[in-house]
């Protein structure tokens, strides 16, 4: 009998031969060098879309909700679909920065800053829709519990009000989390910047950070607490969004599977969006060493798991429609599959259930082009999922006599397209002026960062001995 052990090297998180200095150089290069022409072009396009959005909103406020395609049975149209879609996309950022932090996943450092920025901008886009959907936007402050001249208060038993609190808390906490993470990196930019204006701007927001260990000690504690707070928060946000539907008694909505199903779907679409953006940005900004293929593969795995959770939820919806014996519930199910919106259902099935199955193959998970394609499909599929949920249950409700076909108008469409203008305007500003990767966190996961990787005698860095993460055992009797 013999046993052989084989040491399998643990793959490095940051590829290439990077030192602390080269990491600083790589990441601060973009914010500190002159603006490239291509950026102006992209920013101009994004601004045009943003102006479109502002125009569409202005016309909506002027003319009223009648410019949208919402009709009598279907009172919630694209606005709610887009809201849920954008909020869902936001979930990836907090999942990466908070949940993966608590699980000590070092690879998150490559993408957390990027994904958190995406979260904040996606939630901004999301927040627009319910706000403008109230009709009289000048009375929007009624949703907040502030004393007013009518001495009226909001109705705290309404899931729509819970949503106001959930989304605004989510946005605020995401910004705080993002900013706390940025402070040390802003200090790096302050110290690296040459021009007076950038020194002043970065210096102001760095608040005088020195990198003192006593400060880092509180900082790490703060980061952990924020991660601990954001973890239940991110799960609660889409849960509360799903309550908008699930707490009602409408068939197809009134279902206990909605909260977990919505959360899984949110993470699924969020990872798809992070991948879409990351695969473009890493190429343009030369971040391949940090946002490398290993990280793409891990994200693909998360997408595969959540995608299959979503697929399982679809299956359970069909099962419950039959098992409950409730005719309206099964009616809605059949309307999904063969009803007037069945085309949407089959697009959704194709994009959300079929495409992630390709991720079972390692070669697909590590293929940049295919991953990009799948991420686009998932983004589209998740939009159609919300379209089906919001539309079918309303447009084809209990009595066929009241059914109507819902279709969007020109204004619905350009408002949605316009939110991409807001999103990309913000995102391009972020890429241009802020470090797109968390500098101090990436340094922290370099092998040189660990004092144990230094020789006791010479005090020099020694390439870490391969860590035995996989032990191969062969036994012969």
């Amino acid at each position, binding site marked *: 009998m013999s046993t052989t052990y084989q040491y399998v090297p643990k793959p490095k998180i940051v590829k290439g031969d990077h030192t602390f200095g080269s990491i600083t150089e790589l990441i601060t290069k973009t914010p500190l060098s002159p603006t490239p022409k291509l950026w102006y072009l992209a920013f101009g396009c994004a601004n045009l879309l943003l102006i479109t959005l502002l125009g569409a909103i202005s016309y909506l406020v002027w003319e009223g909700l009648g410019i949208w395609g919402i009709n009598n049975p279907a009172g919630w149209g694209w606005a709610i679909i887009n809201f849920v879609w954008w909020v869902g996309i936001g979930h990836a950022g907090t999942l990466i920065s908070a949940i993966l932090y608590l699980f000590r996943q070092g690879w998150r450092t490559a993408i957390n800053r990027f994904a958190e920025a995406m979260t904040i901008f996606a939630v901004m886009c999301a927040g627009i829709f319910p706000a403008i959907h109230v009709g009289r936007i000048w009375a929007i402050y009624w949703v907040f519990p502030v004393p007013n001249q009518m001495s009226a208060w909001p109705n705290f038993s309404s899931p729509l009000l*819970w949503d106001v609190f959930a989304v605004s808390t989510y946005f605020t906490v995401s910004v705080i989390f993002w900013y706390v993470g940025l402070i040390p990196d802003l200090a790096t930019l302050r110290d690296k910047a040459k021009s007076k204006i950038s020194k002043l701007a970065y210096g102001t927001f760095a608040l005088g950070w020195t990198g*003192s260990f*006593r400060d880092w*000690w509180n900082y790490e504690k703060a980061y952990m607490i924020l991660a601990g*707070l954001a973890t239940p928060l991110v799960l609660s946000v889409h849960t509360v969004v799903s309550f908008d539907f699930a707490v009602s008694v409408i068939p197809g909505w009134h279902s206990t599977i909605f909260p977990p199903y919505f959360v899984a779907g949110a993470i699924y679409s969020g990872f798809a969006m992070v991948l879409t953006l990351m695969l473009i940005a890493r190429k343009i900004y030369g971040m391949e060493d940090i946002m490398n293929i290993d990280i793409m593969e891990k994200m693909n795995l998360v997408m595969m798991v959540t995608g299959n959770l979503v697929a399982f939820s679809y299956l359970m919806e069909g099962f419950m429609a039959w098992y409950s014996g409730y005719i309206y519930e099964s009616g809605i199910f059949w309307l999904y599959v063969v009803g007037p919106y069945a085309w949407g259902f089959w697009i959704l099935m194709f994009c959300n259930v079929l495409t992630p199955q390709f991720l079972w193959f390692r070669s697909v998970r590590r293929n940049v082009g295919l991953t990009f394609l799948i991420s686009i499909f998932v983004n589209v599929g998740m939009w159609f999922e919300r379209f089906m949920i919001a539309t079918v249950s309303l447009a084809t409700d209990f009595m066929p006599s009241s059914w109507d076909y819902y279709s969007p108008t020109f204004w619905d469409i350009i408002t949605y397209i316009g939110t991409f203008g807001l999103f990309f305007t913000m995102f391009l500003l972020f890429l241009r002026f802020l470090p797109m990767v968390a500098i101090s966190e990436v340094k922290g996961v370099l092998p040189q960062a660990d*004092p144990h990787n230094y020789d006791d005698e010479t005090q020099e860095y020694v390439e870490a001995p391969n860590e035995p993460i996989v032990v191969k055992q062969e036994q012969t009797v």
Partner: protein
Amino acid sequence: MNSDNKKVHGVLAEFRNPKELIDAADQVRKSGYKDFDTYAPYPIHGMEEAMGVKKSPLGWIVLGGGLTGGVGALALMIWVMTTAWPLNISGKPLFDIPIYVPITFELTVLLSSFATLFGLLYLNGLPQLHNPIFNVERFSKASDDGFFVCIESSDDLFSEDKVTNLFRDHGATHIETVYDS
């Protein structure tokens, strides 16, 4: 530099890598210094033992924020729903704990997060308009790839020569006196 009429803030020493920095911090602590700090571009794990830093009290601040948020949210909702503006909506009970859960949770998290941010800034003394340590030109490396220790003149045992010798004995690559202005 004319240093005769300037107040000494402390002595700053640079080390090559995190290992040397930890060893140096350990020596500084063992030599009995209290007012000293180490500076690095990322938090070095194990430094808390070398420097003898106590547990951060931030958790208590956050607990205060969280309790304020949670209790405040509950109190507001109970008062509004039962006293200030009781509305009968589809016969739902007015005092109904389950419907208060989402908003209580959200406000607990919200105020805890604010407490974390402001607690962090308070404990670290930020924002700080001026810090003498930035007078040292080399110190801009601390946010890039430099590893520094600074023993401050406020320490009872502080003497410029003694501290400089201590750093030299432990292999500092650069030693510089930090002045207040």
